[in-house]
C-alpha cells in the first residue's frame, strides 16, 4: 500500500536520508527503529509531505505523494502524529479532535470517528471540554493519536508515542496501537524503545545514519546479534 523508494532528503546542507526504502502493506503494523538522529523522524516527515525529498519517491497505491502538500496527503489517508503529540494546548480536547476531521471528506464521518476515538480513549470523552494544555503527558499522547484517527486514515504514522511516558502508560499506549491496527489501520511506528516496538510488530526496519541496514520480522530482528548488542544490551 505505502512504498518509500530510494529517498534522499535532508535539511539545508545536511543530508539526513540516503536511499531509504521501505514498505507498509494494507493493515500491517511495521516498526522503524534505530538510534537517535538516524533519520526516523525525517522519514516520516517525507511521507507526510513536511519535508520534500531530493531523490526517490513515496507511493500510496502506486500514486506519488512527493508533489502533494501535507494537507492533501492527509486526505489521501495518511495521518501522522508528531513526536510529543503536539496537541493544540490553547484549544479544548474537543476542538483538537474536531480539527482532526478538517477535510470535507473527513467531516462527513466526524460523528462516527469521534465515537470510535472515545471508545478507544474513554478518558478523552471525560475531558472533552478541558483545554488540552491541562492534560497529562499520557493523555496528550492519547489526544494526538485520537486526533489523527479523526480523518479516518488508512495508515497512521506514529513518531515515538512512548517518549517521556511512564512504563505503565507506555504499555497502555502500545495496547491501543495494537487495537487500532486490529481495526484495519496500517501503522508505521517509529520507536527508540526497540524491544517494545519489535515485540509489537510483524515487521521492522532498522535505520542507522540515514540508511536502512536491516529488515525482518520483529522476532528475527530481536535475535540479530548486532541489534541485540546495539539496542537491547
Amino acid at each position, binding site marked *: 500500500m505505502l512504498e518509500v523508494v530510494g529517498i534522499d532528503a535532508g535539511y539545508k546542507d545536511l543530508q539526513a536520508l540516503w536511499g531509504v526504502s521501505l514498505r507498509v502493506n494494507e493493515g500491517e503494523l511495521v516498526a522503524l527503529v534505530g538510534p537517535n538522529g538516524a533519520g526516523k523522524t525525517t522519514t516520516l516527515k517525507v511521507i*507526510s*509531505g*513536511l519535508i520534500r525529498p531530493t531523490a526517490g519517491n513515496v507511493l500510496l497505491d502506486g500514486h506519488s505523494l512527493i508533489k502533494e*502538500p*501535507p*494537507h492533501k496527503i*492527509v*486526505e489521501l489517508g495518511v*495521518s*501522522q*502524529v*508528531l513526536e510529543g503529540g*503536539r*496537541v*493544540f*494546548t*490553547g*484549544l479544548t480536547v474537543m*476542538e*483538537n479532535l*474536531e*480539527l*482532526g476531521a*478538517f*477535510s470535507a471528506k*473527513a*467531516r462527513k464521518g466526524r460523528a462516527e470517528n469521534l465515537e470510535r476515538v472515545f471508545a478507544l480513549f474513554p478518558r478523552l470523552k471525560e475531558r472533552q471540554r478541558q483545554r488540552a*494544555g491541562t492534560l497529562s503527558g499520557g493523555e496528550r499522547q492519547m489526544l494526538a493519536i485520537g*486526533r*489523527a484517527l*479523526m*480523518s479516518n486514515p488508512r495508515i497512521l504514522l506514529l513518531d515515538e508515542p512512548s517518549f517521556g511516558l511512564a512504563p505503565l502508560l507506555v504499555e497502555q499506549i502500545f495496547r491501543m496501537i495494537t487495537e487500532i491496527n486490529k481495526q484495519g489501520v496500517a501503522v508505521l511506528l517509529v520507536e527508540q524503545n526497540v524491544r517494545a516496538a519489535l515485540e509489537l510488530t510483524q515487521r521492522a526496519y532498522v535505520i542507522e545514519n540515514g540508511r536502512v541496514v536491516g529488515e525482518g520480522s520483529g522476532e528475527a530482528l530481536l535475535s540479530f546479534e548486532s541489534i541485540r548488542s546495539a539496542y537491547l544490551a
Partner: protein
Amino acid sequence: MLSAVAQNVVFGLLVGGLYGLAAVGLSLVFGVTKFLNVSHGELLMLGGYAAFWMYTLFRVDPFFGLPLVAVLLVILGFILYRLVFVRMTKLNDESKIRNTMLVGFGLGIIFQNVALRLWSADQRGITTTYSSQVLKFLGVRFPVVRVASFLIALVVLVALHLFLKRTYLGKAIRATVQDWEAAALLGIGTERVYLISFVMGAGLAGLAGALVSVGYSIEPSMGLEWTLTSLIVMVLGGLGSFVGTFVAGLLLGVTQSLTFLWLGGTYREVVALLLFLLVLVVRPQGLFGVKEG
C-alpha cells in the same frame, strides 16, 4: 477637575477601541503567519481615504460604507499577499519577521507617497450632518460619531471572536497560530489559512481607518504612528488573546488621554512607551497572553 478626568477617560476609551481594532488586525496576521506587516498603518490610512472619498464624491454615509471599505482592503490585501508576501511563507520564523518588516517598510513608503501625490498632505476628515452631535451624561460629553465608531469596533471584535471560537475555519486559524506543522498534518491547508488571515488583517485595518476618518482625522503620514500603536497594543495585550488586545487598546487610550491631561501632550508617547516597557519587563507574555506550553 473630576469631570475633566472623567471626560478624558471617556475620550481615551473611545479612541482606545480603535487602537484595539487596528491592533487585532496586526495581531491576527502576526499570530498566524509570523509576518510583521509594518505597512499595517498605511493600510489603515488607505481605508480612511477610501471612506473619505466615498463620502466626498458619492455621498456614501461612512458607516454604511464600512463593508465596502473592508472589501476594498481585503482585495488590496489579497493582491499584496499574492504578489509579495507569499514568497516569504516558506522562510523560518526569524527571517520571516525580518523580511516582512523590510518589505512592509518599503510598501509603507510607497503607499504614503502615492497618497501624498493623489490627495496632498492635508489633514482630512469626514464631516457628516450628524458629526457635531454630542450626548451629555453626568456632565461628560460623548460625541455621537465616536461612540458609534467604538460600538462598531466592539461588534467587529465580538464577531471576530465568535468566528475564531465557533467556526471550523476559525479553529483551524487558532490551531495554525499554535503549531502550523501539526495543523498541516491534520489536513489544514496552511497556505490557505495564511492567505485568509492576511486579507482579514487588511480588512480590519481598513475598517479601523474608515472609523478614524469619521471621528478623527486622516493624513498620508499617519501610517507609522498607527503601526507603532498597534504593535504596542499587540504586545501589551499578549499574542493569541484578541480580547486581551482590545482591552490593551482601551488601556493605552486611557493612559495617553490622562497623560495628556496631567502632563501635557509632550509626554503622551513617552508614558505609552513606558507602560509598554513595564509590561515587557514584568509580564513578557503580555497582560492577557498565555505562556508557552
